[in-house]
């Protein structure tokens, strides 16, 4: 599904190597943790996959297509096929929970009828069916992140990219969120999570790609650190 070939990302005229000759392959339906210290290149990789940035060098294929050659409209279509989850949730404050989730479908041009059907299902899945009329400020951090996840899954994406999704949550809420990702993955959605949360990674025992100073250090199933 995803093929990254010798991708390098340099900042400040080549002084900073965010990624160096990085290669990675991912099959559809996989669950992958990107781990490593701050500045290791995790977020850069997420941004490249989301086509928010272009690498200095290398190739990235998504479902067989060269995403680096995408035109403006292709980029929009690419982003629409991916569910994105952020550390700071990025919910729209002025919209209710329902509207925040519905918004993802409105952009895709779904009919009001379809939206009325799909949004409650997505909210049920994340356990927030009863809070659809609440505004984000009325929710806890864990709940806000679950709305973020509902917004990502409501459009049935093939891939979910999450950048530090538990970074602002306490341990219990973080665990809840990770369980949600696991459930979503079990239904067939590919998931890539960039995280620092070593305890959760250890607990989940999924494929772990460890980065250090922009280089791939380890790629195996297991915990946060090499055992």
């Amino acid at each position, binding site marked *: 599904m995803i093929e990254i070939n010798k991708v390098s990302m340099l900042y400040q005229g080549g002084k900073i190597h965010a990624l160096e000759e990085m290669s990675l392959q991912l099959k559809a339906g996989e669950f992958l943790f990107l781990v490593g210290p701050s500045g290791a290149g995790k977020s850069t990789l997420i941004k490249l996959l*989301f086509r*928010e940035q272009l690498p200095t060098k290398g190739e990235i294929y998504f479902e067989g297509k060269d995403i680096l050659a995408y035109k403006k409209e292709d980029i*929009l*279509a*690419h*982003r*629409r096929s991916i569910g*994105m989850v*952020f550390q700071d949730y*990025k*919910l*729209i*404050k*002025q*919209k209710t929970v329902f*509207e925040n989730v519905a*918004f*993802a479908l*409105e*952009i*895709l*041009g*779904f*009919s*009001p009828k379809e939206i009325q059907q799909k949004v409650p299902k997505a909210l049920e899945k994340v356990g927030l069916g009863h809070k659809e009329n609440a505004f984000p400020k009325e929710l806890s951090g864990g709940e806000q992140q679950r709305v973020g996840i509902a*917004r990502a899954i409501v459009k049935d994406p093939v891939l979910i990219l999450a950048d530090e999704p538990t970074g602002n949550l306490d341990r219990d809420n973080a665990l809840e969120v990770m369980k949600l990702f696991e459930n979503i993955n079990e239904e067939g959605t590919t998931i890539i999570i960039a995280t620092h949360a070593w305890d959760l990674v250890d607990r989940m025992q999924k494929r772990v790609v460890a980065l250090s100073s922009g280089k791939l250090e380890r790629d195996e199933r297991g915990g946060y650190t090499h055992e």
Partner: protein
Amino acid sequence: MNRYALRYCIRQSIQSLSRNAWLAMLTSGLIAISLIILGGFLLVATNVNQFIYTVESNVELSVFLEDGVDAGEVEGRIINLDGAVETSYVSKEQGLEDFAVAMGDPTLLRDLEGENNPLPDLIRVRVEDPEQMSVIAEVVQQYPEVELVDYGEELVARLMQITSRLNSLFLVLGVLIALGAVFLIVNIIRLSAVARQEEVVVMKYMGASNGYIRFPFLMEGMVMGWAGTVVSVVALGIIYRQLTAAFGQDSLILLFQPVTDIQRLLPIFLGLMIVGTLMAGFGSFISIRKYLRV
């Protein structure tokens, strides 16, 4: 955009305006204030021009005749000249009487009546445009029946100078104030867009096209701008009405007749509405541009 997208965009604009009501009202209020300043200036400029025009059109040409000429025949020739609007004949007897009245005692100049009357017969000429004054004066001066033509050259020249300077001043000030108003409106809208930049970024991340993101902002900007223009036009209308009523009652300012002709006021009010609405829309459009680069 498919057929639902437009509906979502419109609904989103309405929703966002109602949920950001305070910000929207503040924005509209500030737009209204900047337009009141611009509109107030335009009204003052229009009225000053009107005042000068009134003064100018009251300036007359005085044609003093030689003794014993046919005044009616000279009057006929003058009225046929280009730019001459109206003539009135003042005989030397009438002139003396008017003068005596002006001096405050009708009996004062009794000794100068009849044969002793030193005043010449006079034809007063009103012209269409003060600029034609000197041309008409020159032509009439050539008539053999005419002794002297007087039209207060200095006053007319001074008035023309003032008019031309005022017009230049109003043009420069008008452009500056209009630019200021546009700058204000665009920046007020920009501030309201900054308050919502996060929303734009989220929309971008979710794959919304620039058009889809811009449309509600454009609509909201125009609605806020329009609301601001309505407030400014109503406020200006009320203030102007009060002021013109006050001036109308004041007999001391006889020459000043405020402009109340709707045909001259309408372009100002309509112009304010169009400028306010379009500028606010334009402001929204360019304000969110930088947040679209995600």
